[in-house]
């Protein structure tokens, strides 16, 4: 009788030991990977000009960048201004019409503290773009008003954001799209527009 | 024996704990629903009498019916408030509605209707009920306001309903 008792206690102890060590090991591994990831950020993926970038919600292609003094509408601003214009192609891969692309592309430059949001124009009729429909790829022009006190760039780096779909979010269990860091960085040479070709 | 007892106690505790968890989770919603369902106190005023409400003495001056199109009419409601407590009046936000006999709620129009400007130019100049109307109101001085509504020609038994959330929990109704 006492022999049986002792073996049972030993068995229980073993189980506790195994689960305890396993749990501790799991926690340690997860903590260590988190620390490692924070210490060694993954270098941004660079994409080439004209290459389709899959950002989850959108398929983005970045084409040419130009500096010009006239916005795509063709009306010359009252005060002389410089505009950085980037031709892009966008394909909405989600199920609904969306204007979330307006927060997708940003100038990646440490010196530009807060690069203002670009204005998007539709390339086909040079009018301000609204939301983009699914299954209808569109060509757009992103236009940044370039600060007067900064020299005009010869090169520009654009950071393309990423969004992922969650069928159930952590708060309500509602389906939605969420920002998920950077999909790619595109470096472009900026050509100068003499202004005579565009009217 | 003792293991069996623990089992039954746990099962019984579950029977109590589960509904309790539901109630605790839904408590805020239940209270909100109750608050929404309870009728706000209404002060009904008839025959152009004055009435104290939301830090002022209110009075309906006139309710005119003006032509618009074949099936629509413009209702021009003119009312006044003399502040007795300007601090309370300037706290709230005025909300005016017109209710007809079928309970349909009409919101005031934001642009003055041409017919009002044409027939009653001095009324068209009056401020609408809002914070602006009471910014430089003094105790005792009356503030005259006007609101216009667009209603179907067959709308009957119209009453003006003034709410003042922030200053009063009650609703003032002019008949």
């Amino acid at each position, binding site marked *: 009788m006492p022999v049986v008792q002792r073996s049972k206690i030993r068995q229980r102890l073993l189980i506790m030991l195994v689960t305890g060590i396993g749990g501790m090991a799991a926690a340690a591994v997860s903590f260590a990977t988190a620390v490692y990831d924070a210490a060694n950020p993954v270098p941004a993926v660079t994409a080439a000009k004209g290459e389709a970038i899959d950002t989850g919600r959108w398929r983005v292609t970045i084409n040419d960048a130009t500096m010009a003094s006239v916005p795509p509408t063709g009306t010359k601003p009252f005060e002389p201004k410089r505009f950085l214009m980037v031709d892009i192609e966008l394909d909405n891969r989600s199920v609904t019409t969306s204007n979330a692309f307006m927060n997708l592309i940003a100038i990646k430059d440490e010196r530009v503290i807060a690069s203002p949001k670009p204005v998007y124009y539709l390339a086909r009729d040079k009018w301000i773009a609204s939301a983009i*429909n699914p299954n209808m790829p569109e060509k757009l022009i992103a236009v940044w008003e370039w600060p007067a006190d900064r020299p005009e760039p010869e090169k520009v780096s654009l950071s393309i954001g990423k969004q992922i779909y969650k069928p159930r979010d952590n708060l309500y269990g509602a389906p939605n799209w969420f920002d998920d860091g950077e999909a790619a960085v595109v470096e472009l040479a900026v050509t100068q527009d003499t202004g005579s070709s565009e009217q | 024996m003792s293991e069996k007892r623990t089992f039954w106690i746990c099962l019984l505790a579950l029977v109590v704990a589960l509904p309790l968890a539901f109630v605790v989770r839904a408590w805020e919603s239940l209270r909100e629903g109750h608050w929404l369902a309870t009728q706000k106190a209404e002060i009904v005023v008839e025959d152009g009498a004055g009435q104290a409400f939301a830090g002022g003495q209110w009075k309906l001056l006139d309710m005119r019916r003006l032509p618009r199109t074949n099936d629509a009419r413009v209702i021009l409601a003119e009312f006044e408030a003399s502040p007795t407590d300007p601090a309370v009046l300037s706290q709230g936000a005025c909300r005016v509605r017109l209710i007809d006999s079928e*309970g*349909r709620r009409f919101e005031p129009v934001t642009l003055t209707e041409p017919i009002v400007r044409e027939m009653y130019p001095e009324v068209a100049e009056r401020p609408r009920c809002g914070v602006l109307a009471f910014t430089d109101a003094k105790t005792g001085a009356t503030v005259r306001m006007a609101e216009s509504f667009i209603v179907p020609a067959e709308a009957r038994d119209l009453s003006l309903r003034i709410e003042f959330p922030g200053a009063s929990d009650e609703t003032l109704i002019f008949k």
Partner: protein
Amino acid sequence: MSALRALLLSVSAIAALYAMRSSTPGYGDITAPIAVRGAVGERVESRDFAFGAANVHLARQVRVESFGRIKEYSTSGIWLIIEGAAVAKTETMTLTSAEWLAGNGLRYELSQRFSTVPGYLPTERLEPGLPRPVLLAFELPEAAVDKGTLLVARSLVMPLAEELWITLGDKQPTDIKPSVTIARGSSGTPWTLAAR
């Protein structure tokens, strides 16, 4: 034997939990608007408002004439233009949400490119009991017209409110016009629509 039984039991429990998890409707489904079905050419009623679509046009291009100037709106697909009438029933309101649900499940929102078109649905204030003619326009790929449904609701963010689901039925246009011109109407109608 008992170990096998325990294993079988836990496997069936996991299977049952998985089935429950995957069959539970999501938050989006639970709070989705309640569909009220109808067709083009009839008045479709909800508790708060009624809407009827009368004419449906397809066009490659829309020209909007306002104050003597013509603005052309192109599209990479086609324009679907719907003329109809809407009326509020209980209170003053604006119908701010209109979508085209294509047969493959994609949703196309009402085009936001027009700002000066008279009678455009989201800009039209509806007084109870006073029907107003309204205009809707969508940019769609050509294949999305067939088997599509027009969805009209008071607001996109109102859970458990009613939403009208209107099918084209036999009113689906057979031809796509090269261009449709919308101009301000002179008397009675807020706009005139001319197809070319």
